[in-house]
């Protein structure tokens, strides 16, 4: 099989680049919603309360962030399909892990939607039912406590073989592959740390990592768009 490369007019690559760019835009919009809600919250309790008070904005934000993951996945299909000779095995492995990571993200956002709704129920519950309503919130946040680090581990783990595939291929500039590899290793390490310590203490680091990863996706999107369009 010959190296496919990126051919001008290739529908897959056009869709892929659009996926990356739209995905990053959706991330910006979704983050705007979520940041607006959490702006004045200083701890986890305040964050949950703010989410319950602005449940529609929170759920809109979560929905948009989930669409971000979908769009980025469409982009990653393009990367996977473009590397067909040198580095193809790495790209394939990375893509399959990326699929699993996307499933985990979808589950994570599903929990977040449920937390927002449960928090709103807790705030609206009469005093006698407050405790029972809060037990639901506690159960969901506990579920999130386990799910979140696993999502970080698997999602950024997938970037490692994908980036190796990009480095080995003659298609993408090497700096794109190397920067993806660095992000992948950083994310994997952060996920492992969060598995043991929870996400609260390292959440700012996670936001930096997520933002850099989105910039990386944007860079790939623009680079591919310049070739494919």
């Amino acid at each position, binding site marked *: 099989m010959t190296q496919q490369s990126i051919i001008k007019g290739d529908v897959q690559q056009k869709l892929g680049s659009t996926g990356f760019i739209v995905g990053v835009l959706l991330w910006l919009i979704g983050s705007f919603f979520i940041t607006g809600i959490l702006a004045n919250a200083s701890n986890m309790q305040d964050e949950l309360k703010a989410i319950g008070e602005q449940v529609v904005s929170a759920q809109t934000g979560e929905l948009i962030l989930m669409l971000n993951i979908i769009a980025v996945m469409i982009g990653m299909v393009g990367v996977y399909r473009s590397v067909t000779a040198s580095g193809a095995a790495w790209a394939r492995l990375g893509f399959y892990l990326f699929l699993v990571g996307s499933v985990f993200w979808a*589950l994570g956002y599903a929990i*977040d939607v449920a937390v927002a709704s449960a928090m709103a129920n807790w705030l609206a519950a009469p005093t006698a039912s407050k405790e*029972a309503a809060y*037990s*639901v919130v506690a159960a969901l946040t506990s579920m999130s406590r386990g799910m979140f680090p696993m999502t970080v581990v698997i999602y950024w783990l997938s970037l490692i073989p994908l980036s190796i595939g990009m480095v080995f291929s003659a298609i993408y500039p090497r700096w794109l592959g190397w920067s993806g590899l660095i992000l992948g290793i950083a994310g994997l390490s952060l996920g492992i740390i969060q598995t043991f310590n929870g996400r609260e203490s390292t959440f700012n680091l996670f936001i930096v990592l997520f933002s850099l990863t989105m910039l990386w996706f944007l860079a790939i999107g623009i680079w591919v768009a310049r070739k494919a369009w």
Partner: protein
Amino acid sequence: MIQQGIVKGDALQKISSTGFIVGAILFGISGLLMPHANNPTSDLQEMLKPLGEYQYRTTISSLFGMIGFWMTLIGVVGVHRSITASAARDAVWARLGFYFTLIGTALWTVCWAMDMSAANAVANWLSAPIDDKEAAWSVVASLSAFGRGIVPTTWILYWLALAFLSIAIVHSEVYPPWLGWAGLIVSIPMIVLGVIQIFTARSITLTLVFSILMLLTTLWDLAIGIWVARKAWRITRQSFDSQSAPTHY
């Protein structure tokens, strides 16, 4: 790469058509078995009670539903592999549809597993002594709250996959375009329903709309399964004659 189409005797297409047909049958059985409240109600406890009262029916129904989605995935593999004009947009949409079906099927598996857990939790709640009722209910409420988030997410992703596949079918020269249009007509309202369900609590009306759209999806699975089966399993007159010709010793 040329358009592969559906070749008579192609093992993948035979398996694919079987997957669609068996999947549709399992969805039908699952839908019939799934217990539901006799009277329309918005009370969560009344809505969930039948799941625990008929725990084994719920579990079997969930199992059939879960296997139904796995079988449909097998069917989708066939659609994905039959549209292979690699530079054309139809193959691209088919590929995206297949990958999203993988994700959607994984989410459906979690949903059905949740239903099985919910049936068990509701049964425990119903049989719990008065003192333990509240604690037992909190487990049910937590599972139900998780379902509140995962169910619409699954609808959006799974039917987005179906929409992508339908676009591929419309553009391809392999399948009749009406199959693709029908798939699009079913999937778009389901995605909209998923978005609505994210913002609103579970209700009888939404469940009813879902049931109708799920029934239409099942009919679509059945239609594509039968259509592929007729192509892949068809015995031509010539091959029939060669099979049934008298042997002269």
